[in-house]
């Protein structure tokens, strides 16, 4: 038992929650890994629309990952359909003369808008988290950011590398999952005053 200082007069006043001293999830995850394979084989398939209806943010994450795939494939393999960017718009070179891939520009903007919106929402949740939880979330996000920076640097040297492209998409998906989990989990805990 942990050290306690608070005085109580009945068992009903004792805390119901005593968190384990260590994170037990890795052991559980390892144990259910095999079960996961079995479930994947035996679970009936459901329509994709219904799956995403349960959690719209996961649908959003998946959609964004598709956008990101399209963006990278478009950059790497699509014929360079170009538009003349207006002066002052993203992609406009000094003088407004440089051509920019049109699809890439549009997809970049959509992705950035969705991500920025989620980041703004989560920033408020983060500020309200207990310091320990906030540190964990921020550390996870920082790890993802570092990984992405490395991948982007590698892609800069080898833009056609499909594996690196997939890794980059995965890093965005992972980030979206973390952000969505924070927005949902901590959002509703805060709502119930936990």
């Amino acid at each position, binding site marked *: *038992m*942990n*050290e*306690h*200082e*608070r*005085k*109580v*007069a*009945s*068992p*009903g006043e*004792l*805390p*119901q*929650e*005593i*968190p*384990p*001293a*260590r994170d*037990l*999830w890795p*052991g*559980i*995850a390892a*144990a*259910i890994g095999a*079960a*996961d394979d079995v*479930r*994947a084989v035996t*679970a009936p398939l*459901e329509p994709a629309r219904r*799956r995403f209806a*349960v*959690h719209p943010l996961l649908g959003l994450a998946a959609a964004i990952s598709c956008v990101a795939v399209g963006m990278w494939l478009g950059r790497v393999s699509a014929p360079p359909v170009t538009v003349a960017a207006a002066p002052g718009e993203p992609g406009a070179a000094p003088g407004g003369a440089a051509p920019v891939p049109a699809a890439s520009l549009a997809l970049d903007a959509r992705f950035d808008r969705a991500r920025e919106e989620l980041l703004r929402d989560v920033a408020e949740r983060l500020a309200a988290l207990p310091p320990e939880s906030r540190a964990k979330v921020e550390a996870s996000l920082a790890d993802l950011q570092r990984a992405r920076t490395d991948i982007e640097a590698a892609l800069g040297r080898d833009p056609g590398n499909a594996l690196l492209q997939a890794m980059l998409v995965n890093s965005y998906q992972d980030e979206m*999952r973390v952000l969505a*989990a924070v927005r*949902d*989990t901590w959002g*509703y805990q805060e*709502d*119930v005053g936990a």
Partner: protein
Amino acid sequence: MADGGTAGARAVAVADIEDALVARARRGDARAFERLYREHAGRVHGLCLRMARDPQLAEDYTQETFIRAWRALDRFEARSRMSTWLHRIAVNVILERRRRRDLPLEFVEDAAEYDRDNDTLDTPVEEAELEAAIGSLPPGARDVLTLCGIYGYTHGEAAAMLGIAEGTCKAQLHRARALVRARVASGEAR
């Protein structure tokens, strides 16, 4: 009244989110199940620690509880409380392990009514002291006091979890309360 209504609405919202997580976990989404684990681990571990009186065993039982829960998710009834369901699984795990280790429960047979208000001690004591007094009880009495006294289950619910008669549950609780009072009063639990 508005607060009560808001709290009710929030409780419904929480239940809805939990239902959504359960639905996703049933389809094999381990991330959703991890969130359920994060939400309930403290309460499950608290019960295991109090019933097992051994931190290592308590962690082992907690892990086993969530592993079994994952495998049995299809049998979880929507709209029932996930926390109660997990506690039922945890109690099963603990009782099974006790049987394997030949640690039978001791049950007394004299029944007495349980009134949670009567749990109140004459003088408040430190949490650690009360935990120690409860921990020093014989397993049967400790289990019942943990389930009814700390986690608020009714005699019927606790008896069903432990696989004993409701009258036996009442008797155990009566005995547990008397022993705790005596041990706190004598300072044995310090």
